[in-house]
């Protein structure tokens, strides 16, 4: 009865919330409720990351996935608030396809779980030991992005030192510039068309253009 007990309690709590709300996403009919369940599920997964000591990953999960779903929710509300899509029904074919995909993913994951074993398993204890030795990983992650790799303590002697890796900086930059181009393109397509002013000029603020910009955020 020490801290491991609380670890288990919170693990099962978060895992239960994540699984329950994930099921609710599938079963709910209303778009906004679906988004709400999805956000709850993703936040519970972030909680699991925090529990495992991966604070950076947990905060990233909240920032990227939950924030992204939030924007999705905003669009969902804007486009379907009172329209015909506000309650969605899924066809039989989609159910079968989704069940097939989800089932195969579950099978792969279950296989991994069986390999690692329960809390007392050999692989699990090795993983736990590795987790203890390198708990503050944020700096390592940042350096890894730049190409500076630090050897995990356990494997320092087992392998010869790898050649200096280029890191992920270039890839990261290409992806972010690509996203920027996509955003600019979307703003260009969605902007209000500029018309040659008629004789009577009415000065008004360019409301439509600025509003379009905000939705692209």
């Amino acid at each position, binding site marked *: *009865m020490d801290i491991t007990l609380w670890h288990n309690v919170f693990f099962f709590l978060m895992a239960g919330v994540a699984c329950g709300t994930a099921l609710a996403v599938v079963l709910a009919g209303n778009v*906004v409720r679906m988004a709400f369940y999805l956000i709850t599920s993703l936040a519970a997964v972030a909680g699991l990351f925090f529990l495992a000591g991966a604070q950076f990953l*947990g*905060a990233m999960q909240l*920032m990227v996935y939950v924030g992204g779903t939030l924007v999705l929710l*905003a669009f969902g509300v*804007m486009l379907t608030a009172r329209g015909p899509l506000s309650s969605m029904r899924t066809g039989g074919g989609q159910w079968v396809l989704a069940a097939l995909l989800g089932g195969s993913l579950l099978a792969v994951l279950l296989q991994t779980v069986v390999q690692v074993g329960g809390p007392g398993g050999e692989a699990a204890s090795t993983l736990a030991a590795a987790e203890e030795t390198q708990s503050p990983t944020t700096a390592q992650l940042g350096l890894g992005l730049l190409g500076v790799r630090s050897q995990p303590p356990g494997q320092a002697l087992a392998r010869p030192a790898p050649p200096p890796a280029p890191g992920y900086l270039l890839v990261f930059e290409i992806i972010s510039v690509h996203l920027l181009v996509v955003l600019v393109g979307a703003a260009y397509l969605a902007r209000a068309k500029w018309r040659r002013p008629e004789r009577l000029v009415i000065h008004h603020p360019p409301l439509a253009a*600025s*509003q379009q910009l*905000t939705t692209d955020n």
Partner: protein
Amino acid sequence: MTAYFINLLAGYPAWHWLVYLTIGLVQAALFLALAMLSVAVFNWLERKVAARVQDRLGPTRVGGRFGWLQSPADGLKLLCKEDLIPAGADHMLFRLAPYISFCAAFTPYLALPLAPGWVVQPLDTAVFFILAVAGLEIFGVILGGYASNSKWSLYGAMREAAQVVGYEIPLGLCVVTVVLAAGTLDLEQIAEAQRGWFWHWNLVNPFLFVTFWIYMTCATAGSNRAPFDLPEAESEIVAGFMTEYSGFRWSIFFMAEYTAMLLLSLVAAILFAGGWNGPVPVASLLGLTDKNGPLAEWCGHALGACNLIFKGYLGVTFMMWLRWTLPRLRVDQVMATCLKYCVPLACAMLAGTMAWTFLLRGGF
């Protein structure tokens, strides 16, 4: 502290879970008390500041002098009000929304250090965690606005979504600037790097000085306070996302707003204004450090925590002053402020701080 109590109960391992539970509850209660007392103080202060700005007296009679019982009286009034839920509302989401907002505003206090070591959960990415969780506050607002089944509420929620998501970018850039100068995401280390007299504060750096004002602008917009209170613009859309809320449910939104304001001000104090290190290092001048025993160190930390909370209150008072001084911006002006002024300025300050740090550390 946890280790001390665990040692005390070394002979009774069956009771260890109780120690963890009690310590967790006490820490949560302490921070909840800080947030709730602050909300009560701010409610009174808002009235007083508004009155002073408009050349009035504000509350004077409730509780004798200065109207100091105004906040409890307001709370009692809100408790007695009828709890209404509109007919076409989504009941579950309508009930949940205020709690989501409040939880998102309160949870970041978990990673907020009040003094060296005085933090519930020390995180080496504390700033990032706080920004990530505090950003979820709009989630409650959007849900509340949608679930109300009212056009005004929906308009308010959509405005809030556009505004907060937009202003998160310059806010993040401001925080990144400080993180770059300090070289760490750990709030405790950022504050400790500014230890000593006020010329050690980050505010003294010219680039970070400008960054501070951008941060305060974005924090005001992020907690949808005037002049950025478009989501609840009462002259246009009744009360925005809060139109259909009454009584205590409304007051939970209110608490969330003030809790978030205090949080953003406390983070500003830690990032820019030395955190618990005062303009004058009183604690070390009085000898309240670990050299004179644990009690002196504890007193020094308590003094530092009071110092930090005072700075947070100053920040909130500044936001109130702004609210009652400036008129509300139009939607396009809000977006222009964000995209045309705050983002480029924050980027320029980021570049400037890079150069400053680079030159200060010896250049080439």
